[in-house]
């Protein structure tokens, strides 16, 4: 818009002077991140990421104790991990629990966000607060409460118990991401769809869901990751027959100082990173279209 508005003004200058102008404008306007801000961001990012990255070289160490810098190079720790049924079972448990919890949290969170969208009443505000409460409540408090009530309901140590508890943690993430996706959603589309003969459910499937899919996927990923690395509740709920990967990692450090955890951590970091990249890649694809 600014380019066209400028045209009459620049028309007086020689035509050769014209092309660079809009380009420079764009540099200053749209892409206006100064170098020092980039530096601060880079340092900040390194501060957060570096400790995590240390574990990756350590996982290729040939030593049987923790050491940095790593001594030698071997895949011994990975061999330990992939041959030990305890590690593998807990990995499988974690993956299944996280998947089920993410699905449940996504369904509940999306339904809540869509249902609450556009409601401004006091009851709707209360509902939003209640749904968000697990984000601000200390994990240990939730864990204790979950433990006490699950004891009563005989859910401690059962996969269902893990799924229910972790889904509750995931709902706020889904709610937030779907709500933000809905902020750009035009409610007139619902009326348009209804007038064209679509039932509310068909409208949700064909209009609402495709348009908020990024928010839904983002929420689902966060819910998955939240469950996958949740340790406090999992510690309370663990049983000899069922425990998740974080609990097994905790055990391996506190009881036996097993360096296999370095390989495990590397795998988890890599897996979580890949999962988190999914919505970003989806976003790029949408933008390119």
């Amino acid at each position, binding site marked *: 818009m600014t380019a066209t508005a400028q045209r009459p003004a620049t028309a007086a200058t020689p035509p050769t002077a014209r092309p660079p102008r809009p380009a420079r404008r764009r540099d200053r306007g749209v892409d206006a991140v100064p170098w020092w801000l980039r530096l601060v961001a880079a340092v900040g990012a390194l501060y957060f990421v570096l400790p995590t990255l240390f574990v990756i070289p350590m996982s290729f160490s040939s030593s049987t104790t923790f050491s940095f810098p790593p001594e030698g190079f071997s895949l011994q720790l990975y061999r330990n991990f992939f041959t030990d049924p305890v590690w593998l079972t807990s990995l499988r448990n974690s993956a299944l629990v996280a998947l089920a919890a993410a699905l449940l949290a996504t369904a509940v969170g999306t339904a809540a966000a869509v249902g609450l969208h556009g409601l401004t009443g006091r009851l709707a505000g209360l509902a939003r607060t209640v749904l968000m409460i697990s984000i601000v409540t200390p994990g240990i408090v939730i864990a204790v409460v979950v433990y006490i009530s699950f004891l009563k309901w005989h859910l401690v140590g059962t996969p269902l118990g893990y799924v229910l508890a972790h889904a509750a943690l995931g709902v706020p993430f889904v709610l937030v991401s779907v709500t933000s996706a809905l902020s750009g959603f035009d409610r007139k589309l619902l*009326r*348009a769809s*209804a*007038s064209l003969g679509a039932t509310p459910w068909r409208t949700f499937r064909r209009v609402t869901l495709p348009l908020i899919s990024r928010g839904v996927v983002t929420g689902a990923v966060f819910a998955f990751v939240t469950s996958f690395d949740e340790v406090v509740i999992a510690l309370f709920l663990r049983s000899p027959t069922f425990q998740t990967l974080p609990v097994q990692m905790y055990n391996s450090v506190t009881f036996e100082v097993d360096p296999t955890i370095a390989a495990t951590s590397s795998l988890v970091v890599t897996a979580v990173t890949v999962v988190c990249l999914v919505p970003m890649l989806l976003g790029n694809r949408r933008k390119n279209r």
Partner: protein
Amino acid sequence: MPATSVMPAAVPTAQRAGTRILLEDVVKDYGSAVPAVDGVSLTIEPGEFMTLLGPSGSGKTTTLNLIAGFETLTSGRISFNGDDVSALPPHKRDLGMLFQNYALFPHMTVAQNVAYPLRERKVPKAEVVRRVAEVLELVQLTGRDDDVPAQLSGGQQQRVALARAIVFGPKALLLDEPLGALDRNLRGALQAEIQRIHREVGSTFVFVTHDQEEAMSLSDRIALFRDGRIEQVGSPEGLYRRPETLFTARFLGDSNVFELDRLTDTTAVRGERSWALDPSTVADQARATGAAALVVRPEDVHVALAEDAVPPGMASLTATVVDVQYLGSYRTVLLSYAGGVTGQARVDASETQVAPGQAVHTWWRVERQRVVSR
């Protein structure tokens, strides 16, 4: 598809077989001081182009939403061709709808948008393809099938929305200020388009607008809304020429308004002035209520420099010229009448020349004045 729906929309020779929409004492109360719609009764004839006109907040849009089923009735009854639809959800009412902001599905192409209502009705694929092509031709968008809405201009988007709203042969088409977001030129073009499609499809159209010119040029009949009620229903000419109330007279076109002190069968009295009346120009409501006003349209007011230039038998009044605006084919003379009423006359550019400050004699034909209730 119900048997009552009109011919497939894209058949240009479809007979005028629309739906009769009947509103009986319709009320919508949101719980505020005054109901949004407060007892509206209206019959919309099959194939008719009915405009719901009124200022914002007058209840016209709520009434349209009640017909569409987006709002539920507080009381009253709505029926299509005699079938009570009052409790029917919108997706079962089989109505096409145009929105001001087009409301196209942004994640679907033009063809997918237009095919949407057909897919919901489980129309066979080959039939869908044929009908989409037909209706896109009707709105002159052939070849834009694979564009997404964001690639189209506002006018094109509204034409896609129009195609989508008529492709399934709806019982009626509801239009909620569909031209409001377009600039002036485009609006004219799309008005013509809507009129043409109304002619070709022959379906019942219910059009909501606050723009009286739009209403006048498009409609078979206009229902003028005021404070949740219908003020008057009639043809554009009927409303303009024979308003019942001052509100109607003022909403449609400009008027010279003289509030009356007294009204008898043959005379209208204001202060010391009295006018002879043609009984046919007195609105029933004015006669009934007694509180009345005499209304004259600017194009009916003539300006004379001397009293003897006023033809005999005319209603007349002295006035002072306040200003003269030259508008090409005519001039608007702003007047301050004796008795403190301001008004205007629209005179031929070739007619008597007057200047601001000049004292003049205004006159008009008795049968051109109208007595309305106020």
